[in-house]
């Protein structure tokens, strides 16, 4: 039997997705009978050049996690795209930009100034900043170019499938990978979202809902929420209604709100915008003053509604 050739790679990600795949645990070992993992730099001594030398489309399925935040990420994405028959954007960062895309609320210059000059422990009298090309006395040293705007994977290469989640939960990962490996069921249409529900988290949330009404926004540190009742109805902003299910509502089980890592729903043009609309629609206020009061208590709309989906949002970044 010919083994399926798989590859895993990371761009701008925290490594949590790698761990998530590693979460396959014993299954991973079983898998190695069916598949050949021919590229997985996080775990194996395979090198970039090995990849470069493979013929195009020689990888059956490549899983790429992480957002695109620098020239190297982009280069890598293009390379992997060329070498793979199927490219899967794995995890929130590759799919929607994830947490790194919050950098789209600021700029490269602001980040550099902050990191290399302003932070209190930084001592940098010469105001040195990292250079993409630097002439050391022994020779030239180069580092990749840092991008001003963080992109999702499909904003730099063509992507076949998406697996949402920060990180995708174990069972879902297993489902997805076996789906590719045993090739029993025909693959879903290109562009499909794998390992997640088509319905929002509310569909699988066990909490009790009463009346959809929000009198005031309550911040998580201000109250001990009733673990049985819908958080939204307790005034806590929960992204559940605007977020794909499939994670098993684990955060809610920990009595914390959903932050939206599973991304927008199938027919939602923009996750954050949709949540904003849903939330404000049920503000319990009739007059401009009262509405304003509640609106003002939503302190950080972008950071709340686009926690994980800034790159995939309509606006994508702030105007600077």
């Amino acid at each position, binding site marked *: 039997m010919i083994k399926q050739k798989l590859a895993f790679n990371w761009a701008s990600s925290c490594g949590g997705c790698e761990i998530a795949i590693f979460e396959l645990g014993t299954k991973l070992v079983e898998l190695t009978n069916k598949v050949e993992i021919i590229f997985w730099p996080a775990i194996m001594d395979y090198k970039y050049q090995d990849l470069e030398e493979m013929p195009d489309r020689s990888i059956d399925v490549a899983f790429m996690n992480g957002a695109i935040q620098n020239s190297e990420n982009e280069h890598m994405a293009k390379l992997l795209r060329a070498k793979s028959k199927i490219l899967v954007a794995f995890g929130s960062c590759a799919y929607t930009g994830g947490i790194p895309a919050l950098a789209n609320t600021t700029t490269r210059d602001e980040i550099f100034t902050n990191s290399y000059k302003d932070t209190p422990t930084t001592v940098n009298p010469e105001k040195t900043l990292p250079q993409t090309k630097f002439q050391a006395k022994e020779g030239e040293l180069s580092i990749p170019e840092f991008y001003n705007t963080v992109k999702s994977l499909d904003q730099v290469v063509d992507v076949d499938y998406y697996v949402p989640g920060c990180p995708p939960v174990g069972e879902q990962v297993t489902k997805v990978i076996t789906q590719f490996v045993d090739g029993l069921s025909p693959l879903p249409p290109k562009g499909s979202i794998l390992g997640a529900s*088509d*319905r*929002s*988290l*509310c*569909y699988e949330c066990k909490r009790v*809902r009463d*009346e*959809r*009404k929000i009198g005031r926004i309550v911040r998580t540190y201000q109250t001990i929420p009733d673990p049985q009742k819908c958080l939204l109805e307790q005034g806590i902003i929960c992204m*559940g*209604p*605007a977020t794909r*299910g499939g994670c098993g509502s684990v955060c809610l089980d920990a009595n914390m709100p959903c932050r939206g890592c599973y991304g927008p*729903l*199938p*027919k*939602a*043009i923009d996750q954050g915008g*949709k*949540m904003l*609309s*849903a939330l404000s*629609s*049920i503000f319990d206020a009739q007059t401009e003053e009262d509405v304003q009061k509640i609106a003002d208590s939503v302190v950080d709309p972008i950071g709340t509604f686009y926690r994980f989906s800034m790159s995939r949002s309509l606006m994508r970044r702030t105007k600077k």
Partner: protein
Amino acid sequence: MSTMPQKRVGVFICHCGLNIAGTVNINEVVERAKKQAGVVLAVDHKYLCSEPGQALIKDTIKQQHLDAVVVAACSPAMHESTFKNVVQSTGLNRYNCEIANIREQGSWVHDDRERATAKSHVAVRQAIEKVKLNEALQPITVPVTRRVLVVGGGIAGIRAALDVANAGYEVYLVEKSGTIGGRMAQLSETFPTLDCSTCILGPLMVEVYRHPNIKLLRLSKVEEVKGYIGNFKVTVRQEPPYVDVAKCNACGECAKVCPAEVPNEFDMGLTWRKAIYTPFAQAVPPAYVLDSKNCLGLLPQACGECKRACDKYGTSCINLDAWPQVHELEVGAIIAATGYELYDAAKLTEYGYGTHPDVMTSLEFERMLSASGPTSGEIRCPSDGRIPREIVFIQCAGQREPETALPYCSKICCMYTARHAMMFHHKVPDGQAYVFYMDIRAGGKGYEEFVKRCQEEKGLLYLRGRVAKVYEENGKLIVKGVDTLSGKTVEINADLVILAVGMVPSAESHDLASKLKASLDAYGFFAEAHPKLRPLESPTAGIYIAGAGHAPKDIPDTVAQASGAASKALDLLSSPTLEREPTVAKVTGELCSGCGICIPICPYTALTLSSTTKVAEVSAALCEGCGTCVASCPSGALTLRNLTDEQILAMVEAIVAS
């Protein structure tokens, strides 16, 4: 975009004489329209709404096998239905027609020919993009329950109930008190004809009681209203039938022995009645009523005198253990005729009502004038029963006072005050009556003449001005006011002062309105769908309004509106089904997570969460198509037929692209 095959679109551009062509370069609009994807042809015409114009559209649709049509002309508010009908007449679905408004929002508002032309082109493009994505829709037909509920047993409710019943449809008439008749039954005479009120009302009450098509539910209250136009489900709660109406022969033995006495509301508290009583002589049904609030006998069974008396001398029709009854009614239309109450005169401290017995409201005075009233029609001062010589009528008492009391005019006070003054003069020929007024409002058939006649009575003085104060001074009431005509302050020693206080909506109307989801106006009266064009309907479909619950009215207006509301309801009942606009919200079940955000958004309760699938469902019959739920749906599972996000964005692109 969408997967449906490209529609063959025809674009028709109207000159509207020079109205459009005067500012817009029609040729250019035509030529640019031709270049749009899907457009088979674009033609112009001098007057598309004219017969030849419509014919042009028809013929072209047939010859060119068009699937969709864009008409660039005046505002859709003008001729949208006209052109949709044209399209429909060719066999195409009427929703394959879109209007581009290039007149009201084009040629008429821009001088610059170039800009007006460019904007008109954009409007046409928008319409093209939208119509391509329109789906063919059939009007929604819903069955009609051919029965009517009338709430309120006053003259309005009585009239409406009779009209519907006489037309051959069943009517439920729900009345809160023990009898129908309402305010009109309390009146002694009516203006301008001085008919005896009960004499003209009585027969109608009996007719209602006897009518085979009318089911009278007295001592009843609407508890819940579900459903929608043509299909309401109403829960009515009725007081326990302590007295068996069928058996009771009104012998009155029960009342004789009843130990509980309470003020008689029918006489505005000027007399007393027992806890078991008959509201008034002509009360319908002609049976005694047990006032459970004041009866000593109920829960725990303590007294029971009436029952013993009834069993002994009467028809043993009293059952003190009776239970309340709950009626589930199914009706197609509801007529709200909840009537009015008087503004609380005690709030008008300057007039001393409530502190001095000889200051009365006009309705109390009305009872005194009535032959069946507390004084059998004689006018006497409540304080000591003497016959008043000097009487002062104060019009607009607490009315037309935006800051302190009612901002509005109750419309009938000028008339009944004139009548009261006249009646006083007839009953106390040597007495002197004063009427303080601001201006006389006597619009209505024979009204002005009537007031004039009253004013000509001698011993009756009309003073134009407001009364500042009414106070007591050694046994006499002093009325201080100004006569703005003479500019003098007047001070009158009065025996009796009558306050023409205003009409306010009855206490029930607010509660009922919220159950009907019918909106009220600022004062708590029922709001109409349109002040001029739809004065008989509430904005909520299937709800009609009649009488003083809608606004202060006199009897003729009330009866007219009642008959109007009845015929509106009959219009609805005339067909077994009714048609509604199909451009309503739609849920894609597979995408809905039942998060429930949309449920409270809908003002028509058209959205519900299915108990089986747990996801949202739209009642197409209830939905008015506002689309507010669509915007609130976080998963995009809700869409609005023929105004989807896709269509709106296609139009947006048409705007920004050009």
